[in-house]
């Protein structure tokens, strides 16, 4: 159970209304939070619980869900040698979340990549441009409704599994 984890207890005590769920799977703790509080929670984790390294920022697309996108953050504490996964659901109609660049400079390119490949916006990001795809590219390749072959090509008819 994730409830006996120190970080989860501290987060529940401080942000009781923001925590949607806390899970433990294969020894990894995942906390799902409301997207409005992501910066406050990450700031608390960084300053008070010593999660000082932002390892990764990414997203997952779940078309058909009430909140289509799930932002996924991986944090690491160099002092405690502990990992934490934070997730925040985002609706398709308002697909933007506050940027973590004020907390970690390293979030800059990671968030640009999510913007590029998923089309999720980041409020207060200093330089939100595409990073891997060309600037004039139509669509966002990692969305599930984006075809594997690209937007303007016939689907591959051969064996692909």
């Amino acid at each position, binding site marked *: 159970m994730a409830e006996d984890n120190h970080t989860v207890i501290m987060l529940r005590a401080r942000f009781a209304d923001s925590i949607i769920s806390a899970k433990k799977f*294969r020894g*990894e703790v995942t906390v799902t939070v409301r997207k409005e509080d992501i910066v406050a929670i990450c700031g608390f984790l960084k300053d008070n619980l010593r999660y000082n*390294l932002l390892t*990764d920022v990414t997203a997952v697309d779940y078309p058909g869900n009430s909140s289509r996108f799930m932002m996924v953050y991986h944090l690491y504490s160099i002092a405690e040698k502990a990992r934490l996964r934070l997730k925040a659901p985002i609706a398709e109609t308002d697909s933007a979340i506050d940027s973590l660049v004020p907390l970690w400079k*390293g979030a800059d390119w990671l968030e640009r990549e999510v913007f590029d490949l998923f089309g999720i916006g980041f409020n207060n990001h200093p330089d939100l441009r595409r990073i*891997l795809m060309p600037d004039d590219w139509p669509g966002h390749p*990692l969305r599930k409704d984006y075809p*594997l072959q690209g937007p303007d090509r016939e689907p591959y008819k051969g064996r692909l*599994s």
Partner: protein
Amino acid sequence: MANKETMTLNMGPQHPSTHGVLRLIVELDGEVIQKITPDIGYLHRGVEKLAEHRTYHQIIPLTDRLDYLAPMHNNLGYVLAVEKLLGIEAPERARTIRVIMAELTRLMSHLLWLACHALDIGAMTVFIYCFREREDIMSVYEKISGARMTTNFFRVGGLSQDVYDGFETDVRRIVAEFPGHFETYEGLLTRNTIWLQRTVGNGVISAQEAIDFGMTGPVLRGSGVDLDLRRDDPYSGYENYSFKVPVGTECDTFDRYKVRLVEMRESLNIIAQALDSLRPGPVLADAPQVCYPPKEAVYNTIEGLIHHFKIASEGFPVPAGEVYQGVENPKGELGYYIVSDGTAKPYRLRIRPPSFINLQAIEKMCKGAMIADLIAVIGSLDIVLGEIDR
């Protein structure tokens, strides 16, 4: 009367010292760097998208091509992530061989780094020597997997096959001979005036800034942060080996050079310990729903053939859930985040590329320096564009 006009210099994407197709738009005041805007994506192949359309075994060759200078490490991180999701573990012998190959890979990657870094700064002899030694490791690669770079050697649950006869002799020879080679490199570089002038005090990034940028690997350790996942979050049996984790103090290019040279010696140390603990045994886990049957069974029995055919054509289902597995790649923390929906293909595969994240700090490290210093900094960051662009 100062002229405030700056010059914009376009470096790359085809430039010998950018180590691939990296384009840097550099704004210069005379020779002093004012601003760097990296432009990446020239090698983008959509590996994460492709992975969503392939079975778990079919993704292993894709991972070879990320950091193509350290293919075994990429395989290792991926198979460990899938094994974690499945809840299986490779047998003892497979874990030990994985460690030996991973450390040989680190040597190979660091040798190429030293070769190119030295060549960029003008030390051509070191370049030739490092490539000569790299060839010894390449030949082990070739014998063990049939390929020199895209090895595709590890499997979910173990290895594709056991090692060849004479593997231990070959690796022991490397362990015995390489310390002498390292002394040669150090003799050529460590007290070389030109080398020191180009690297000491160059590309400084403090520990706090390096953490802020999310940097990992030798670049972070060169800045004095003691973080090595092999020791701090051990995988594949690294907890059984004792080794030193070198850290720098001056946070500059010279310290990153020293850290990597110590790391190469420590790799040999780990390989020697792993060889001593290598015992005969199976190299694939006893998990028939996941692992291919032995070739004799495929060729001689109908059950074996059907078994092989089913895994090759349909793959194997993986329990729904999500895992993250980070490994200490020669460049930094390489992470795989897999989301499974219970089918034979991942719902989402995210690769956390160490070079991509380390490269972000280049402007911070070079602002106010000369254009020639930029070349030394790119070399000491040790980036691979195959992984940055994915």
